């Protein structure tokens, strides 16, 4: 990778990150996507919008989130110092609210009166329902029937927050199917509806917009680690479904070429079994949900269902900027299995008194390897992007415990 390549500003005017991204939507949605792009361009340049964001991030979300030296995990792995960026401490329990807040404020600015969203683990659904409640907007969340079953606490939370949760039974009833149905809703209710996409995917400007809203994670982490350790970390690590928490952490570090950026995809039952959600490790470039990116697909271009124990990672694609960072070699992408995530979930809970969501538990599995690889002089920042309260039923079920 050349220096200039890593430092170029993406996306370009067509919403491309190198050969990835773009705007692949039905014509009915094109004018809406263009309208959104215009509104987003304007909002970004408006100091009032930024000030409004900062105020809510501070007072409502609880930012900046802490950075925490995970001493016992570091000791356990026996290598580098591991710092956790505590985005699980945000209001609603994950990084998702950073983005929801931004998009809902933008929706208000655009005069939209109805919010829709898709959700996998339910964290994005909860965060969207929360912000919609705060601003008095009706909210409809599309959620796969399979995911509704495995994330019951979040379904109940969304309903309490006043959102309508629509079960999606098409396909495998997971995140991609929820996204299909959200797009079907948007194409039908074009005038009043704002679609809050939860990850760095979808048609331009979503991957850019979501990255910008999430990049607060990396900006804070970079300043915090400099303050605490007096130097940049050797590596930043985050789990990846669509990739919003990873992009949020990575973005501020992309120009720091000595900082390794490591994304951890969900290997499910193992990449070789075919039952996984690792789009970069096991997919190839294609077009779905508005963007060109790596996708799990068969030899006819039909999308293959992803598998992961974590509903938040159970998606057959990945944000286009990750596809780009992968292809130019600026970021490394590895994976962790269901079993590894379950083991890390328990380890982190016992050693640090932090119950991680199953999603960042995937990242932790590779943090362990990396800590040993880097040795005691090493320094790692991992995004603890969500807390595991939502997963306790699934974990109990896995451990054969009735609660």
């Amino acid at each position, binding site marked *: 990778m050349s220096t200039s390549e890593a430092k170029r500003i993406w996306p370009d005017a067509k919403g491309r990150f190198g050969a990835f991204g773009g705007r692949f939507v039905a014509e009915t949605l094109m004018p809406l996507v263009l309208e959104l792009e215009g509104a987003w361009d304007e909002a970004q340049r408006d100091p009032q919008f930024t000030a409004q964001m900062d105020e809510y991030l501070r007072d409502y979300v609880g930012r900046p989130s802490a950075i925490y030296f995970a001493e016992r995990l570091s000791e356990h792995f026996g290598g580098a110092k591991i710092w956790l960026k505590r985005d699980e401490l945000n209001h609603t329990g994950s990084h998702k609210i950073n983005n929801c807040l931004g998009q809902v404020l933008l929706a208000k600015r655009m005069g939209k009166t109805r919010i829709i969203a898709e959700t996998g683990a339910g964290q994005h659904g909860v965060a969207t329902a929360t912000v919609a409640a705060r601003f008095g907007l009706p909210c409809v969340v599309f959620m796969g029937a399979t995911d509704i079953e495995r994330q019951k606490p979040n379904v109940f939370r969304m309903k309490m927050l006043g959102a309508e949760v629509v079960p999606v039974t098409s396909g495998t009833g997971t995140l991609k199917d929820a996204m299909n149905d959200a797009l079907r809703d948007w194409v039908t209710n074009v005038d009043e509806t704002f679609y809050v996409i939860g990850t760095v995917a979808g048609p331009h400007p979503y991957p850019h917009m979501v990255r910008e809203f999430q990049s607060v994670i990396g900006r804070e982490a970079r300043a915090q680690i400099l303050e605490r350790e007096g130097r940049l970390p050797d590596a930043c690590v985050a789990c990846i479904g669509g990739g919003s928490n990873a992009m949020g952490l990575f973005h501020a570090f992309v120009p720091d070429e000595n900082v390794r950026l490591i994304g951890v995809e969900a290997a499910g039952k193992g990449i070789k079994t075919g039952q996984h959600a690792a789009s970069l490790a096991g997919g190839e470039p294609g077009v779905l949900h508005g963007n060109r990116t790596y996708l799990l697909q068969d030899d006819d*271009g039909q999308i293959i269902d992803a598998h992961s124990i974590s509903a938040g990672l159970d998606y057959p694609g990945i944000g286009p900027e990750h596809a780009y960072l992968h292809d130019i070699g600026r970021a490394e992408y590895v994976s962790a299995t269901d079993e590894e995530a379950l083991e890390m979930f328990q380890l982190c809970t016992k050693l640090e008194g932090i119950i991680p969501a199953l999603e960042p538990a995937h990242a932790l599995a590779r943090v362990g390897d990396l800590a040993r690889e880097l040795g005691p002089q090493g320094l790692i920042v991992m995004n603890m992007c969500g807390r595991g309260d939502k997963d306790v039923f699934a974990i109990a079920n896995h451990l054969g415990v009735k609660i």
Partner: protein
Amino acid sequence: MTVTGAARLEARFAALAAQDRAAFVAYVMGGDPGLGKSAQLLDGLPGAGTDIIELGMPFSDPMADGGAIQAAALRSLNAGVRTNDVLKMAAKFRRTDTQTPMIVMGYYNPVHHMGCEAFAKACHASGIDGAIIVDLPPEEDAPLRDAFEEYGLALIRLATPTTDDQRLPTVVANTRGFVYYVSVAGVTGAAVPDADPVQKAVARIRAASGLPVAVGFGVRTPQKAAQIALSADAVVVGSAIVDAMARNGIKEALDLTRSLSDAVHTARQQA
């Protein structure tokens, strides 16, 4: 001499315009519920008054389609049908029918996977005259457009109720054959369009493009088809035929096609 590709569409529209008749376009899902029955249905369409055939290519994630066509795509995929099988079925049809224009409709990923050039070549070889790729807007369709031009195929664009005057020129530029007007904002087979706004939209698109305008999405009954046929150059029915096929089989689907095409063909005489 038999014309092919975009020219076959143009010839059919010219012939119908000379008779002051709108065209009836039937959409069927390729390979639904399996290749055998799907081929039988396809073969029966011209005899049931279909002027132009729109052949669906199944996709696992049909974001712009409503329940009927989603289900049809899944039946087709579950029967093991893939894009190449649909093109082969089209080629077989073309051996006995050189007159009826036939376009394919589908989503971009299978095309992208095959490669635009290979897809255009395969369409040409299979007697396909054009394509509608739902999730490929003008801003992104240059690779396919170039490949289609090379083979004389029509890349047909969609105009919708959200396509305003500012955007319309972008949509109709480089379109060949006809423009497909999506009459309601929504998925296929959902809401029913009102005739009045449709008439205005058709006039606007015809003026901007100089091309025939086909109207689809939400037209299910002969009455509605006839109403639309008064102003549109073509009326497309998909979900209703796909539904009839799923519920009652080929004969019912062709009976419905016949009643729809009759209504479209006689609409202007009876008005």
